[in-house]
């Protein structure tokens, strides 16, 4: 990414607000996936776009300070999560990647449906975010 030369107050101010909205929306997409359009893949891409926006508006160093995440680790965690949900069902004697769901009463949300597809989707989400940002950063940081 090019070092910032000009005064980009407008961009940076807007980004501060926008990234918040983008990230919130991406989390919504991730969790809404089961019943509404959305899901891990879309949510992940949306998050990645939000973070990319951060990198575009600020320089890499400062973003890295505020987001001290190694995105390669994120890929790993995501893969482990996705494969783990599959293996967990195997331990119970079901075929690989069998998913379960049930309805629970939760204190704040009221009756809600919880499904094992959610951790799987979170795994997808993490891999997508990690992969997209890793690719961005690798290319952008390369001199």
């Amino acid at each position: 990414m090019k070092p910032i030369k000009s005064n980009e107050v407008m961009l940076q101010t807007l980004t501060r607000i926008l990234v918040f909205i983008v990230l919130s929306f991406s989390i919504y997409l991730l969790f809404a996936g089961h019943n509404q359009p959305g899901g891990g893949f879309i949510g992940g891409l949306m998050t990645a776009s939000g973070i990319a926006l951060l990198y575009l508006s600020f320089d890499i160093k400062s973003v890295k300070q505020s987001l001290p995440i190694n995105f390669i680790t994120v890929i790993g965690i995501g893969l482990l999560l996705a494969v783990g949900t599959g293996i967990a069902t195997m331990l119970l004697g079901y075929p690989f990647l069998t998913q379960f769901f049930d309805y629970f009463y939760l204190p704040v949300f009221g009756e809600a449906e919880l499904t094992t597809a959610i951790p799987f989707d979170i795994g997808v989400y993490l891999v997508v975010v990690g992969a997209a940002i890793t690719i961005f950063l690798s290319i952008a940081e390369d001199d």
Partner: protein
Amino acid sequence: MTILHWATLSPFLFALLIPMLYKYIKRIHTGWFVLIVPLVLFIYFLSFLPVTSSGGSVNQTLNWVPSLGINFNLYVDGLSLLFALLITGIGTLVVLYSIYYLSKGTEKLNNFYVYLMMFMGAMLGIVLSDNIIVIYVFWEVTSIASSLLISYWFYRKKSIDGAVKSMLITVFGGLSMLGGFSLLYVISGTFSIRELIANADMIAESSLFLPAMLLVLLGAFTKSAQFPFHIWLPDAMEAPTPVSAYLHSATMVKAGIYLVARLTPVFGGSAEWFWIISIAGTVTLFWGSISAVRQKDLKSLLAFSTISQLGLIMTLLGLGSAAFYYSDGMEDSLYTTAVLAAVFHLVNHATFKGSLFMTAGIVDHETGTRDIRKLGGLMTIMPITATVSLVGLASMAGLPPFNGFLSKELFLQATVNVVSFDFFNLETWGVLFPVFAFVASVLTFLYCIIMFAKAFTGKFKPENYDAHVHEAPWGMLISPVILGSLVIIFGLFPNILSSSIIEPAMAAIMPHTQGFDVKISHWHGWSSPALWMTIGVIVFGLGLYMLMNKWSQTSFYLKERDPLNQVYDNWYDGLVKGSQTVTRIQMTGLLRDYIAYMAIFIVMLLGYSMIRYDAFAIDTAHVSEVTPYMWLLVLAFTAATIAVPFINNRLTAVIVISVIGFLLSLFFVQFRAPDLALTQLLVETVTIILFMLVFQRLPKLKKEKSRPRFKLVNLIVSIGVGGIFTMIALSSFAFGSDVNYDSIAEYFIENSKELAGGYNMVNVILVDFRGLDTMLEILVLAIAALGVYTLIKLRLKGSEDV
């Protein structure tokens, strides 16, 4: 494993010991140990003589691959025994000779004797095996061993060239032979030679008879150096002389003869077999003798004379196969004379040619040259060598009282007999056989005189030699003297061979004909045409030699290289250059060319299949209605797509491509795929950012601002690809709506809520019904990210390795 099996394989087993003997017993020449093997084998095989001479045979079985009918069965009859005795007998003498020929200190004797034993074992395997696949295995081992022996002095370029040539030609023949054997198996269902002979009638009626025969003959002809495959033999003279004496005169080149003789009961009696073998043999006989006259090198001369003599034996086997035409055996002697002559000459040739090679080796060893223009007057200095040579050459020329005379007379007699044959059109063309035989005999006589006169008579010129010329050590002389004595003994008392060796061998070649009464005599009376022909040979041969001063200056004599080598050289160069050209044309190293190949191949393959099965169909009945909004989208989409190739700026191109991507997500919206539309939008966005990042870094110098070049081929190929896939899509739509499959979608629609608890069917399919796909896709993503990361971060220096 019977004793016979152990005996056949003993040279291989002994070869394993040779390197150890060479390394640990330096004091004694390794050859002395090796000598035991052929000697013991020779004595062992002599013990079979009583069995075969009484018409019996020995048959030992050993299963190798019984499920395929490939078994290492050994079969000893007269023919096998004759060859086995030749191989071991001459093998013994050659090993003895090589002990004195190859120096203990300077030569790699371990290599030499290992190769030689390998060869001897393979040769025994060929002649003793009953199974043609086993014969083929041993056959190839002889090719390999022969090439190894030719290139024994591998630091000489000529040795390597000779080895490569002999390898290429004999392996070509060997592979053809394997094809022929496979066809024989297809016809008869057996690999056993005796069963093949038993089924000869069935084979003769098969439509594969001729191909099988031709392929087998290719193998036999290349091995036995028949015209035009003889060219490897003169070049094989780069081998050490013991090798030339053993392989290239007495044994390997006779493997082809053996094969022809062995399979005569299978193929004999057909006109093709008769004509092909007789003509190939006669041409080889003639060509070899005329080429031998031109040679200036003793070993080359002997090589061409070997070719010529092999042609002679081949001719005789061809003529002898006529006996099968009248298998009821009337006027037997007319046809069987040829086979008798072939077998007899086979023995004689092995004796005199072996001794001649050995004497030539002695001359080379003691004087340092083999060039007949330098040699001369060696008779008084090397009296024993000269005597043995004289005996050998006189026998080869066909002079009485040596054995060559007897077989040569039988040969002439056999060719004369052909004139009285009345089948296969022999009434018209048969007369050519005696004519060619006579001319070739004259030439044979001529080169024999030349060889003896140039090497041993005349004036001795010490300045021509680098070394001090003297008679060879006695050890080196033993073998040629023994062979020379055999020449005389067989010449004077030919009938010691007739009932013990020749009759059983003839019985093996012609199993249907009974009761040979072989009586070989020197004198047939004045009425014998062969006698007059022999006298004619001597007269004309002497006459030509007297006139040698006249014709020795012609270009015919001065150029000694066989013109057929030109063909071989051109073929070899052409093959190399041709394949290089083909590779250069096709392997351009340009990805765009390879993509064009693939695209053209796909278009042609699919197009052909479509036309072949008449699969074109268009169905408008099931097409849904197209709204104006869709038309608008399609129009914009098409316009953007068509614009891409005409854009001359990268940035613009990327933007237009992203326009196409965004339009695609509009399509998804139109087709009610919100998840797809969202994903497409986001992926498109991320892709553009990546494109921009990469474009920033393109080198300035090579920035391509020009328009993409127009190429007609590319246009045609891309139109072809587009056209074929459009057609396939239309057709599959038409056929698909015809068959009325129930879509699997119904199941997902019904069960996405019940079974997976989700209303977003796409997501339910992705994470639940078919979660495995998704899992592997994120794996792909992870690999891609890590790949990009490593590609960029990992900077290895030139010699570093990952």
